[in-house]
């Protein structure tokens, strides 16, 4: 035996395991314990039950004064007259011309363009899907509105990519740039649109320009993040190959990094499109035409069906663009073709220029024929009325589910249950505990998750909540976020597991998830209130609808990404599928599951503002004041509160994720 071990390589890491494990553990617990105790002592010494609110006293009034100054001076100061107004004009020019292109093509031409782009990037299947889905907007009788919205979104997406991809490349190449950008990106992604909508209008005027800029603010972060991730994921060996052949940095970027990061960058494009469509309804608040306004009108009239049709059109447009721009060509070919590909298609595939020319020719032909036949508008006789059926369905659900359901009693009593037994028990201790206790707990959690760095961040975030004088509201929001995230995960993880184990389930779920993710929450607010009564529960339900899709997707992805080798090994030892799931897949997917937790929490926070419009209250409502009462400072405080909570929850869950990777 001795001979056997003596020839082994030295273990890469010294054996630190057994003997001093307790010492390590003690260190992990003792230091945070001391810090927590110190915070509590200091807190008691300060002696206030209320949080120190120094920030509130100075910063928010300053923001209000700045806004007021802007309002008064936006027609005199050069910044507005020389810079912002030109930006505004340029953006307007873009959206107008984008719309003209779509209008010249007419509806058959736009459908053909969708098909050509889909064929080119993603194959026949995606092209057909895109065309069918997009034509759905016409069948809803909303073709013209859809084109207005699409032109706006296309411009916003292009600008977001023009900004986001270079920034993402920079962040991918430079650690410092990444660190600096991260704070801005977090804020841009989580800060509710309501906070900056009115300031944008003051700077850039009502209409398309402000709407595009708001969309860009919201859509740039994923472009930067995913591009940076893609650049960083390029293997070091490949970079070395490039360097060894004497590539300059520029050549390295152009010939090695960018081509290899192509897939993630395309994924970034996809995410940017999805994010952009999430802003459509807000854009209509500031005077843009299109589908968003229709949704709001429906909401205003409390007419579910009327809000549903344009909501569905938004979903259709987003899905169509998504499918044709970021097709899953590679995955479908991997799955194996059922039919053999005729040789002429293969031959064409090798001559993309010919295909493009043919496509273009077809496109022009379609547009000309459309013009000649006077097909200016999508035939109204083709439109299908969804308003009545949706209203009937919503009415039926309302009549039958609110009460009298066996066992659970109905959605109304379920709602009461959630308030009394979930929301209140979480909220009340958060609100009634002395502020320093909560800060201390947050710091302790931060410490456990990621040591000093995250602990400091936790302290900053929670003291910030106090300093902004939004403590109670923030605790209310936090309680709702925790409950909604927990319920979302309770739904998402089992479904995600199921989808990972059955591709049929995954395929059935996919369109539902797409719809739930892109459908503006404004559309289903009314039925949700009708079912669950006004209060925090409808907000929780709306959050769940929005947060469950990424939860399911990431769970499925995490399970699928578990390396095959250990799973096969488990099977070879006679593990049943259940044993394989519990003993191999779930533990190995723990890290991506934490990512799912992370994303679910962020999504719940993202929808919190909308939830506040149906009774959730909390910080979300504060941000609405930024628009509706022109109390920009107050809205900003609420928005920053959401950012603080988001950053805290995000970093803590991420830190737990990397920790589990490190030590397990």
């Amino acid at each position, binding site marked *: 035996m001795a001979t*056997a071990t003596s020839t082994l390589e030295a*273990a*890469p890491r010294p054996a630190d395991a057994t003997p001093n494990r307790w010492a390590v553990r003690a260190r992990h617990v003792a230091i945070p314990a001391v810090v927590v105790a110190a915070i509590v002592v200091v807190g008691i010494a300060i002696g206030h039950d209320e949080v120190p609110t120094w920030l509130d006293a100075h910063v928010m009034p300053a923001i209000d004064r700045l806004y007021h100054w802007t309002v008064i001076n936006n027609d005199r100061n050069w910044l507005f007259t020389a810079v912002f107004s030109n930006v505004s004009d340029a953006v307007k020019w873009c959206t107008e011309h984008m719309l003209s292109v779509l209008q010249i093509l007419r509806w058959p031409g736009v459908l053909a363009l969708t098909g050509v782009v889909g064929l080119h990037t993603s194959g026949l299947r995606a092209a057909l899907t895109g065309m069918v889905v997009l034509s759905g907007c016409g069948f809803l009788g909303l073709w013209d509105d859809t084109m207005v919205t699409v032109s706006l979104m296309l411009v916003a997406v292009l600008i977001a990519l023009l900004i986001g991809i270079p920034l993402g490349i920079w962040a991918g190449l430079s650690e410092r740039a990444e660190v600096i950008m991260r704070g801005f990106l977090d804020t841009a992604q989580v800060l509710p649109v309501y906070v900056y909508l009115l300031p944008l209008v003051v700077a850039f005027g009502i209409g398309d320009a402000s709407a595009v800029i708001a969309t860009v603010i919201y859509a740039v972060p994923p472009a930067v993040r995913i591009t940076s991730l893609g650049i960083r994921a390029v293997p070091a060996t490949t970079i070395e190959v490039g360097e060894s052949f004497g590539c300059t940095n520029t050549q390295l970027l152009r010939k090695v990094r960018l081509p290899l990061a192509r897939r993630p960058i395309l994924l970034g494009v996809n995410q940017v499109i999805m994010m952009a469509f999430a802003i459509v309804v807000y854009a209509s608040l500031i005077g843009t035409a299109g589908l968003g306004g229709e949704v709001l009108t429906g909401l205003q009239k409390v007419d579910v069906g009327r809000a549903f049709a344009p909501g569905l059109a938004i979903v259709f447009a987003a899905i169509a663009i998504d499918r044709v721009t970021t097709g899953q060509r590679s995955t479908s070919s991997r799955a194996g073709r059922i*039919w*053999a590909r005729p040789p002429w298609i293969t031959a064409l595939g090798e001559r993309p220029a010919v295909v493009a020319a043919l496509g273009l020719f077809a496109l022009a032909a379609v547009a000309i024929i459309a013009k000649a036949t006077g097909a200016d508008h999508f035939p109204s006789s083709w439109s299908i009325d969804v308003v009545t059926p949706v209203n009937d369905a919503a009415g039926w659900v309302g009549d039958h589910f609110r009460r009298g359901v066996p066992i659970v009693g109905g959605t109304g009593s379920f709602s009461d249950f959630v308030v009394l037994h979930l929301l209140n028990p979480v909220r009340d201790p958060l609100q009634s505990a002395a502020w320093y206790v909560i800060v201390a707990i947050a710091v302790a959690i931060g410490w456990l998750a990621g040591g000093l760095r995250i602990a400091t961040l936790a302290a900053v975030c929670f003291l910030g909540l106090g300093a902004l004088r939004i403590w109670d509201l923030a605790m209310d929001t936090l309680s709702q976020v925790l409950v909604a995230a927990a319920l979302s995960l309770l739904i998402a993880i089992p479904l995600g597991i199921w989808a990972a184990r059955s591709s049929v389930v995954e395929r059935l779920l996919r369109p539902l998830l797409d719809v739930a993710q892109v459908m503006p929450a404004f559309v289903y607010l009314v039925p949700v209130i009708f079912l669950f009564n006004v209060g925090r529960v409808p907000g929780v339900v709306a959050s769940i609808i929005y947060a469950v899709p990424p939860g399911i997707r990431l769970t499925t992805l995490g399970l699928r990404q578990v390396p095959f*080798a250990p799973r096969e090994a488990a099977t*070879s*030892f*006679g593990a049943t599928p259940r044993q394989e799931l519990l003993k191999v897949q779930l533990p190995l997917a723990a890290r991506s599951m934490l990512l799912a937790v992370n994303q679910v929490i962020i999504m719940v926070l993202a929808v919190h503002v909308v939830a506040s419009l149906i009774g959730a209250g909390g910080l979300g409502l504060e941000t609405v004041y930024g628009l509706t009462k022109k109390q920009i400072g107050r809205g900003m405080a609420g928005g920053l509160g959401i950012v603080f909570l988001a950053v805290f929850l995000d970093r803590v869950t991420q830190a737990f994720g990397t920790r589990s990777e490190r030590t397990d």
Partner: protein
Amino acid sequence: MAPEAAISVRGLWKVYGPRAERIVGSASADLPRAELEARTGCVVAMRDIDMEVAPGEVFVVMGLSGSGKSTLVRCLTRLIEPTAGTVRIGDTDVTTADRDQLLDIRRHRVSMVFQHFGLLPHRTLIDNVAFGLEVQHADKKSRRAKAEQVLVLVGLGGLGMRKPDQLSGGMQQRVGLARALATDPEILLFDEPFSALDPLIRRDMQDEVIRLRREVNKTMVFITHDLTEALRLGDRIAIMRDGRFVQVGTPEDVVANPADEYVANFVRDVPRSHVVAVGSVMMPPVSGDHAGTVPLTTKIRDVVAQVAASPLPVHVVDAEGAVVGSIDRVTVLSVIAGADLIPAAPGG
């Protein structure tokens, strides 16, 4: 072929693609790979394999990547479902086994060692080794005791509380080996277990297998792409190409009598003296003085020193010690120089 074979495979096929069954045994199965795929969308991974492995035998399947050898070993316990044919483990028909029978075979009778180890990174070594026992629902105490015992056997005693990523590749594969041994199976399957290791470590591990074989006497099916490894370990070697066996025989057989050009190319650079045993090239016993005795199975290279030291022939003896032949400098030199000098021996 002994009727009590540990593993018996008959007419085993694996075809990937739509409606794969139709390809089995049909004329199109003989089409070139690319043409078959273009016409039917199907790929034949393994065709019409017959094999018998005797109890206690080490059967090596050797082939280049894509030859179908990994598919074959996985079909033995239906980690991959064969398209046609039968596999018997002892007296159980694996191919028709129901779920419970299959689990029983995997849990108790056959274990596998994998190329990429397949260890569970979140578990300690001891719990990795105990995994097979755990899925059998063995209680924690007994399975850990057994696991500790096996870890000692593979030379990792006392390291049970480490995690796999704290070990080198060679040590990780020892864990893989220990895990396979822990369930005390009749049969061990090795899927290129050492190909990811450094040459020196690989040699150690091969020695480990040889040693284990002596100590635990299991039937083994060993997949490799490394001819040296195959020759070192195998009682018999099957050379696999394009999904079929092109030759099955003892190491000497394969080296001395390659079945076709393909095998011949393979074994061309193998020093015969490393493979050929004295028994297969010896001359009839001669009386008179001799420079010593060697067992039948001694490789030629191991008698070089003896024949060089003396002009006298060396006696070859069988297991009982009876003289069955003799070998001298000329024979040894002719083996080292190449087969052309002497007619190949009638086989072993």
